[in-house]
């Protein structure tokens, strides 16, 4: 395997639990990523430069303008779902609604396997949903995703520059950057919705055994279903 320098990906990890932050930080470092951890959705938005108003009970909050995000290059946000105040889902929505970060990949983590929750997050634009405890193998799946986003961003910037040069206006072009794992990223999400509907008709016994099987059984129901269904 070629030992060319691997691009440094910067991940913003959000979790209210100190224990979980320590774990995700180590996992990401082991996966060769640069990591910034914050303990709330608010702090995540602040870090990205997205917080417009100041929280009334937070005198230290800084109101920053969206342009500042240019200095902070984040390639992925990974966030816990269950957090007090702003949930991971709320954070996901805010990120996807922003013009600056709508293409930022967001991954949700949760200790609970709730199909309705999973599909809601995926529908809102989350790239992935990981069940805790998250493992190295899970994070390695994210590399192609971060790479794709990084390249796409570069390509977009390139195109904006050349089309500006040509006719003085910015062309609104969204190039398709094809990288091998692309198909496997898209398909699971779409098929997942189908699997989720199947899961919702499962008996409560099966759900209980899925719940109990979490520690030893690493099968992720949503993806296991795909290989047999397709």
């Amino acid at each position, binding site marked *: 395997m070629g030992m060319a320098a691997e691009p440094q990906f910067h991940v913003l990890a959000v979790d209210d*639990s*100190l*224990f*979980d932050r*320590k*774990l995700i930080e*180590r*996992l990401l*470092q*082991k996966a060769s990523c640069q990591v910034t951890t914050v303990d709330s959705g608010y702090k995540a938005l602040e870090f990205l430069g997205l917080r417009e108003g100041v929280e009334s009970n937070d005198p230290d909050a800084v109101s920053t303008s969206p342009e500042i995000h240019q200095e902070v290059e984040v390639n992925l946000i990974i966030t816990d779902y269950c957090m007090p105040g702003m949930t991971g889902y709320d954070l996901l929505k805010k990120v996807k609604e922003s013009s600056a970060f709508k293409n930022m990949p967001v991954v949700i983590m949760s*200790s609970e396997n709730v199909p309705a929750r999973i599909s809601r997050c995926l529908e809102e634009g989350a790239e992935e949903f990981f069940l*805790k*405890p998250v*493992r*190295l193998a899970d994070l390695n799946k994210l590399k192609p995703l971060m790479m794709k986003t990084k390249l796409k961003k570069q390509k977009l910037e390139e195109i904006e520059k050349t089309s500006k040069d040509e006719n003085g206006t910015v062309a609104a072009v969204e190039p398709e950057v094809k990288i091998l794992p692309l198909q496997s990223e898209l398909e699971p999400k779409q098929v997942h919705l189908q699997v989720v509907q199947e899961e919702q008709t499962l008996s409560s016994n099966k759900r209980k055994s899925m*719940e*109990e099987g*979490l*520690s*030893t059984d690493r099968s992720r129901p949503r993806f296991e279903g795909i290989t047999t269904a397709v």
Partner: protein
Amino acid sequence: MDTLVAQLQRQFRDYTISLYHQGFLDDQFTELKKLQDECSPDFVAEVVSLFFEDCEKLIGNMARALDQTGNVDFNLVGSSVHQLKGSSSSVGAKRVKGLCITFKECCDSQNFEGCVRCLQQVDIEYKSLKAKLQDLFNLEQQIVQAGGRIPQVDI
């Protein structure tokens, strides 16, 4: 010819295997060991220690909530159990996690006696695991001090 190092390594291996076989630890603990390296040589000890601090804090919260006779906030107890279940799952503390599942059911059904029983069991269990992991870490230290390498144990 059984050197001190070889003896210690064997003890370490046997003890580790027994912890898995008796259900104290599961493969998530193995995953944590994979994350330990020269950059983070004390990672497992650090997270384990954080976990036990969490146990103490959460069990304290639950005990206080259950002490409010006649006015127990089962939601509060339930949310502490949920947190404990999460961290025990992430650290590979299999028995503690199992107890949390039962405990959560007692909270959901507002079963006071069940909750009190579960709390006692969780308290005993985490302390027992804490002692065993301490023994394991001590063995590691002894091996290193005797000039040996800590063996990779495949479960």
